[in-house]
């Protein structure tokens, strides 16, 4: 089967998300679709899956023009999609989730569980997924849940399977397993579309790589002939630097001291399990770990957004254990929050207003109860210039900027103060390559100016590139504390998966 997208154009108000995109997908091969965030990958796949309708262009299967009104039509035509965010019912079993919507039923529509379990078991074995049809989905780890999604797609007899950023939620070891599954799907004669912005993975798994940039297909590449750097340049459209330039750290005195910190999550479970950690002035400590191992709660506790149960936190000798966000801010702690849209910015506010979001209450931006907007505007103009925020004006609503520029607004706001400690949580999530380079350089600059930096990232590459010391969190505990020079990706990966634990020193 050969599926062809021809001349696909999709316009949204003010943007052309896809502009005359051409793409061929064949069964029996893996096509990687790479591009920066906002390049139009997801729009294109949503058109293929019948969620959007193209303004122009055709989708053909073996030369026959298709018209997908809804995902149902796409599924019927043999297209399956594994979304980045799983669409599973946690209180249903694996088998129930898989057959949902096409259940084998008997008299009066009674669900035939036995049949469902048998069918699911059979499929699972055929593709080496190793799933227990009677396991409750909510109890399964993320990597296994993803297999349930894959099985759902196979069960609907998909010939072409689209994976949207499938590795974002997986541990390095789970990623290896995932690639094995992709191989076996390919061998079974299916076509795979693998959407990603991680170039290493695209090079590793794909037979062909198609690059999207600003809604256009800018080229196809053979992974055998191209390296990561030239692929990145193709994606961004200019020369890029993938590594971070930095001199060895010159650590000074301990700035952040965390002692025996115990934090409970929103669900009432222990998320940070009696952690102790020091960060010294002039060093970057990177916290690696798979998402959901207590990193978010740790950061919330440090920044005053969540009250710890016990333990102490001091910054340059000042106790901030029970301090609120304002007091933490006033202790010269900068915080780049993990979710910029939810916490870091007010999307409806102007860039200028966001630039003073954490400092509006103090001189010179206000005195007693009155805002001094002219001062704030002048400061915002200065920061926009200095931090290279691409915005039509400081009056533009922050929500209308691209992800990278939104993040630069936050970085500018938080780094423009004199800091003792910088807590950067996922500082480059969903940010384009150009902005990543820039933000990384800024973080290193802060370090060199003697700021203690705690970097929390689920992107192992980011931690390895920036950190002078790497600690790994697993199930709320620090399972390793390693000097960057003494470790490597695969060792950290093992710690992240909980397969290994460092003896307490």
């Amino acid at each position, binding site marked *: 089967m050969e599926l062809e997208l021809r001349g696909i154009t999709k316009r949204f*108000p*003010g943007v052309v998300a896809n502009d005359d995109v051409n793409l061929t997908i064949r069964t029996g091969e893996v096509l990687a679709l790479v591009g920066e965030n906002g390049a139009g990958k997801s729009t294109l796949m949503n058109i293929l899956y019948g969620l959007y309708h193209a303004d122009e262009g055709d989708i053909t299967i073996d030369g026959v023009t298709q018209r997908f009104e809804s995902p149902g039509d796409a599924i019927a035509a043999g297209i399956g999609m594994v979304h980045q965010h799983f669409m599973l019912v946690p209180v249903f079993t694996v088998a129930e989730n898989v057959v949902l919507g096409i259940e084998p039923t008997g008299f009066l529509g009674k669900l035939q569980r036995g049949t469902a379990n048998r069918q699911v078991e059979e499929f699972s074995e055929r593709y080496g997924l190793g799933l227990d049809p009677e396991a409750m989905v909510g109890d399964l780890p993320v990597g296994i849940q993803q297999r349930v999604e894959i099985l759902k797609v196979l069960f609907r007899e998909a010939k072409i399977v689209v994976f949207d950023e499938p590795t974002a939620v997986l541990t390095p070891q789970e990623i290896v397993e995932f690639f094995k599954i992709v191989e076996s799907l390919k061998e079974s004669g299916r076509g795979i579309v693998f959407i990603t912005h991680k170039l290493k993975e695209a090079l590793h798994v794909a037979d062909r790589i198609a690059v999207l940039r600003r809604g256009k297909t800018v080229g196809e590449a053979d992974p055998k002939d191209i390296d990561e750097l030239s692929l990145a340049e193709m994606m961004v459209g200019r020369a890029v630097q993938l590594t971070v330039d930095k001199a060895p750290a010159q650590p000074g005195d301990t700035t952040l001291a965390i002692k025996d910190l115990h934090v409970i999550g929103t669900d009432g479970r222990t998320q940070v399990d009696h952690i102790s950690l020091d960060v010294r002035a002039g060093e970057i400590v990177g916290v690696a770990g798979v998402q959901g191992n207590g990193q978010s709660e740790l950061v919330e506790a440090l*920044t*005053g*957004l969540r009250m710890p149960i016990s333990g102490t936190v001091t910054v340059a000798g000042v106790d901030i254990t029970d301090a*609120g*966000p*304002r*007091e933490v*801010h006033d202790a010269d702690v900068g*915080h780049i*929050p993990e979710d910029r849209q*939810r*916490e*870091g*910015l*007010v*999307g*409806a*506010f*102007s860039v*200028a*207003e966001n630039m003073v*979001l*954490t400092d*509006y*209450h103090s001189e010179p931006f*206000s005195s007693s*109860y*009155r*805002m001094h*907007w002219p001062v704030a*505007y002048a400061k915002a*103009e200065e920061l*926009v*210039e200095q931090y290279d925020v691409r915005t*039509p*004006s*400081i*009056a*533009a*609503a922050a*929500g*209308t900027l691209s992800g990278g520029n939104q993040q630069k607004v936050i970085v500018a706001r938080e780094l423009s103060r004199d800091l003792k400690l910088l807590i950067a949580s996922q500082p480059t999530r969903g940010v384009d390559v150009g902005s990543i380079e820039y933000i990384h350089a800024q973080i290193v600059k802060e370090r060199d100016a003697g700021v203690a930096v705690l970097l929390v990232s689920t992107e192992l590459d980011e931690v390895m590139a920036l950190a002078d010391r790497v600690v790994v969190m697993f199930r709320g505990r620090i399972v390793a504390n390693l000097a960057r020079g003494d470790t490597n990706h695969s060792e950290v990966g093992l710690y992240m998966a909980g397969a290994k634990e460092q003896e307490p020193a």
Partner: protein
Amino acid sequence: MTELSSQTDPVVAPNADRPNAFRRFVNQIDTTNAVVLPVLAFLSALIVGTVVIALSDIDQLRDGDIGGIISTIIDAYVALIQGAFLSLNGFNETLVAMTPLLLAGLAVAITFRAGLFNIGGTGQMLMGGMGAVFVGFTMSGPGIIQVPLAVLAGMTCGILYGIIPGVLKARAKVHEVISTIMLNAIAASFVLWLLKTDTFRREGRQDPISKLVNPQGRLPTLFGFLDRPELRAHLGIVIALSAAVFFWWLLERTTLGFEIRAQGANPDAARYAGMRPGHLIITSFAIAGAFAGLAGASEVLGTQGRATQSFAGSIGFDAIAVALLGRSTPIGTVLAAFLFGALQAGGQKMQVETGVPVDLVLILRALIVLFIAAPQLMRAIWRVKAEGAAAAPSFGGWGS
């Protein structure tokens, strides 16, 4: 929104110089969401209203008298406009009707801006009105002292009653929609009881009606110099317009206003930025209570001169429509209150002159709100292109 942050406008001059005041003003006005949609909603309501007018004269309809129907429709709308604007008397009545709508509208708008939903305008108005009327009939002194004191009493009672749902929400997570509805019922019963006490009840009356406010304690009339007593518009409209200016100043020029807007637009970001949500919830409700209390004071001290159990009428609820139509901006709320006031004043004349029931006005109002609440529908019907992010008034959903 500050005057800088026009929601959708990319036309703002580049970083070099800030646009001049006029340009900024136009930028803010000239957005599909803020102006075009309310206007379209109003037009749509008028169009659907023609059907209602046609149905109101069922005999003509049955006879198939198309010409008659059309002339009824035209007559009704002409009378509506005349009654609202085209005579001093009509304009006067528009101002009278607009005053409490504007004040109560601001009381709802301030909570919308803070991400809250104040359905308690009625209760806060009732309490404010009782406070004002009490000072109004007990004190005797020169008006220059008595009137401000009575207004202040009304405002204070409004604040005290407004704070209750704020505290309940901030301290005990009671949803403000529930608590304000309940507090309306409590206020209504409380007022009824007060009006039956000897302190409040007018001598010689069995029905719940308060003593008359002393003549020097009434809000001075606007057109008093014309010596036409039927022109009853009073200083309340000046208070209301001043309140709208205060509303603007508070939101755009103070740190508290910045916090309220941040809390309303993104409570998580507000918390991250070190703002105190509980404090902001209580303060917003206190300000809302102040506006609604003023609305009550203006009604009893100006328009009515006494309190009855129903002096607040449905104003507290109509105010929600006013705030929605005005998109919770000061200018918008003033315009929306003016429109609703005009409809009310014109509706009276329309009924007298053409026999079309005044209820048409209620239907028009309801239709406007319905259409405002369905921006997608408006866009589809009128083929307006969506521009940028919708900036509908946001308030916490159920259970937030």
